[in-house]
């Protein structure tokens, strides 16, 4: 049961101060030399972020990037905003304290598949369940890069790496399914190379009030090169990528000849449009209350990238932890003035 806290229906940036001063991508570039490997997908995401932020028109001093440990977690150093490069897996915990006490900040958590899904798995699911107002960008390269190439919780079963010469035994996570299972109110996926798609997702995430979870497929040319190549090849991409557009039937393929249809108990599958008819193709609606729909979407395709829906899977309004926490403090302050002397005295005193 949710309690009506009388909270206004606000966007994610409602209390973050804005500026009329025109901003450019370079305003968000710090003076630090970027040190990812040449060709790393992280560069493209960084560039996209730097060109996207000016469109929000926020005061740059009110933007904070918090990261954990891993290649992607160097991200905050390259942004000319406030930033904290914290410890492995803990960025969502740190961001929870920051976002709860500072509604005037736009807080972004930068993490990777190892950072968020392995060592920090607990903090990730609890941040999503609480729906704290910060954005989580999970750079999924399906490998440990910084420690030089061990398999990660999103690596495919049987993957041969330095630590698994006979093949890994672990079954991988589907990050989106996990986030949805953790009650996430905003879930999306984008490709590092798709600047337009990524910008769209980032914009919606920024405006979402609550935790926004964005999985970004990111290529690591050094330790897992080409993991997502099939999605970057023009012909293959047309066959495999399923773009999710609000209010439109979910079709894909070079001629939009495929569509997503209902299947079994609350499931979805792909089918040929001419066989089932366009009327039977599911019309995408990310605001459906029941997470089963977004979950079914997240199960289409998967590890083998045979089919890969991209865009916003789920976006629903739910009370955020930080709004509710502040509301309690405000409510208590209104009900009872902060009289320290009275608190220290209590009700049961005696005088000597």
């Amino acid at each position, binding site marked *: 049961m949710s309690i009506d806290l009388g909270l206004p229906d606000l966007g994610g940036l409602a209390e973050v101060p804005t500026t009329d001063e025109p901003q450019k991508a370079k305003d968000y570039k710090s003076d630090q030399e970027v040190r990812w490997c040449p060709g790393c997908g992280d560069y493209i995401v960084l560039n996209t972020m730097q060109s996207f932020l000016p469109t929000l028109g926020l005061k740059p001093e009110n933007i*904070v990037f918090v990261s954990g440990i891993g290649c992607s977690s160097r991200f905050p*150093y390259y942004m000319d905003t406030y*930033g904290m490069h914290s410890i492995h897996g803990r960025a969502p915990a740190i961001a929870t304290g920051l976002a709860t*006490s500072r509604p005037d900040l736009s807080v972004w958590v930068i993490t990777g598949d190892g950072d968020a899904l392995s060592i920090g798995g607990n903090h990730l699911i609890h941040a999503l369940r609480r729906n704290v107002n910060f954005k989580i960008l999970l750079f999924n390269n399906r490998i440990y890069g910084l420690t030089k190439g061990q398999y990660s919780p999103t690596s495919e079963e049987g993957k041969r790496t330095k630590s698994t010469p006979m093949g890994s035994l672990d079954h991988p996570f589907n990050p989106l399914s996990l986030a949805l299972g953790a009650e996430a109110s905003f879930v999306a996926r984008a490709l590092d190379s798709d600047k337009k798609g990524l910008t769209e997702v980032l914009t919606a995430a920024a405006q979402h009030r609550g935790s926004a979870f964005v999985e970004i497929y990111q290529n690591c040319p050094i330790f897992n090169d080409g993991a997502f190549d099939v999605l970057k090849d023009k012909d293959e991409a047309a066959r495999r990528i399923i773009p999710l557009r609000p209010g439109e039937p979910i079709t894909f393929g070079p001629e939009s000849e495929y569509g997503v249809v209902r299947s079994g108990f609350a499931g979805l599958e792909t089918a040929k449009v001419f066989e089932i008819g366009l009327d039977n193709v599911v019309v995408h609606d990310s605001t459906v209350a029941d997470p089963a729909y977004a979950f079914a979407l997240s199960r289409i395709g998967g590890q083998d990238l045979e089919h890969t829906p991209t865009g916003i899977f789920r976006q629903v309004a739910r009370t955020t932890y930080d709004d509710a926490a502040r509301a309690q403090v405000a409510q*208590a302050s209104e009900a009872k003035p902060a009289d320290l002397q009275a608190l220290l005295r209590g009700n049961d005193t005696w005088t000597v």
Partner: protein
Amino acid sequence: MHLAECQQHRQGDRKAETVTGAPVQKRGTAAPMSRETTTSPANATTDVTKLDRVVIRFAGDSGDGMQLTGDRFTSEAAAFGNDLATLPNFPAEIRAPQGTIPGVSSFQVHFADYDILTPGDRPDVLVVMNPAALKSNLPDVPHGGILIVNTDEFSKRNLTKVGYDASPLQDGSLEPYQVYEVGMSSLTQGALEGTGLGKKDAERCKNMFALGLLSWMYHRPTEGTERFLAEKFAAKPAIAEANLLAFRAGWNYGETTEAFANTYEVAPAKLPSGTYRQITGNNALAYGIVAAGQQAKLPVVLGSYPITPASDILHELSKHKNFGVTTIQAEDEIAGIGAALGAAYGGALGVTSTSGPGVALKSETIGLAVMTELPLLVIDVQRGGPSTGLPTKTEQADLLQAMFGRNGESPVPVVAPCSPGDCFDIALEAVRIALTYRTPVMLLSDGAIANGSEPWLVPDVTDLSNLSVEFATEPNAMDGSDEHWPYVRNTDTLAREWAVPGTPGLQHRIGGLEKADNQGQISYDPDNHDRMVRLRQAKIDGIDVPDVTVDDPEGNARILALGWGSSFGPIGAACRRVRKSGMEIAQAHLRHLNPLPANLGRILESYDTVVLPEMNMGQLAMLLRSRYLVDIRSYTKVAGLPFRAAELAEVFTDIINDTRPEGSGEADHVLTEATE
């Protein structure tokens, strides 16, 4: 004990905590000291004996409500104006099997007509609700002590459960004690007949019967308890009424039967004048944090995860949101401190509260706070370890963990309160250090202080120091550019500036990687790392802490009893005993463990012998030996319970008389039983 007596040993008006004078009325036995007996006008058959102090222990099954009973008796003693100290002792299990030894819960209260320092070594009066309580607590009662026994629970079955072949009430084994047999369960049921309450429910009120009886024996005021019961069970008037009836039945039982020949009076204590209340260590800590937030004009964010015996700090703070306090019950210990650190980065007073196992999990984040040089308060309410250890018992064995339990050179200031009331002052002191020096601070409380209570002279808030801080507002780059350099330091304190997000023009990045001196970009430069390690150390070493004071009434002592944390009470009480027997001993107590007070080295050198009792294997002794190259006679005990004053008095006396064999108690790591 009052205020932080360990901060400033009060002189004068010192009365020795007398060697246990059990209020026994055994015919033919010489009356113990400081007692006068008169005949009560109210009851011609009952004598009133005046005592200067009494230790009472209530013991029963965990389901018997002994903590509540003890707590109420304590409140009555407080309302009456006695000085007091308490020691709750309960199992880690919520409900261990009924009637068994592991299921026994007890509450000891020591009250007196003078300022006392400890909850008392041994009970003068033991109230037992069942055979298990008798069996586990009897060894603590000195011969001649009073036993008040609920005979209704002494069934064959219950006796067998704890290994009694014959009832100790009948086999003569209790001869050395003065035993009062009272059928508390049946008397309570009898008193509640006609209330419509079932037998079982009626029987559950027997703890209030015991409280009523003891309240009568010790001439306690009863209005407080009557009011308390009415409020506690406001929603269940029938239960309130039943408890009240049981309480009165206990009182009347004492008054009307002739079973008890004596009642006892302990006059109010002559304490420094002022307004007092009773307070536990955990509550005082919570209040200290609220006060610190107010004095610093900062919102407080507590990130915490439930853990015994620290959870009450979270509970208490969550009640005071009207002071701008946000409490986050996190998903785990790591998230608790993470949220606190994140809030500190945003300009709040970040606090996390836990016990030793939680500190182990938080270590990496404490290291991050050391590296990012952000203010943070880390509270460790120590309990028995290692691992899960003894969750509900006390210990002081996390000192080295607090000092060194992190990777790398990671210095952290450490402070420790000396009593429940001192938790308030130490919280403010810890926050002062954290804010002034931009550092995490470890505050080491322990189970005895956390759950123990004492009268507390309510501070006047206008006397509290101002803790307000200034955030950075202007660029500080040393090259004259308009940038913010995060690691430029204040020349006095070596603290870096606190530039919070939202401040225009000061955008910067911090993190766990080593940073260049001043400028603060990532640096792997060997010389820079060496410099930064030394700077971080110098900052902590340079923290301004008050000198330690020595209590030596005659001024000629050659032996110094040194302590830290909750052992202040037993050490102080032991010193009083030693002095009463005509010998001299000095006492000093450390509230600052890192850095140590500047005058400590000189003090240690000026005594022939320094003896240091600790509830660990000699952790502070080890630190002091290596730091000052002086010998320390370490006396250690790790039994999950506070030291007894008598035990320490014997150790001190032996050392003064030089009758303690060399090496004995010298970090001998032997669990020493108290010998009285």
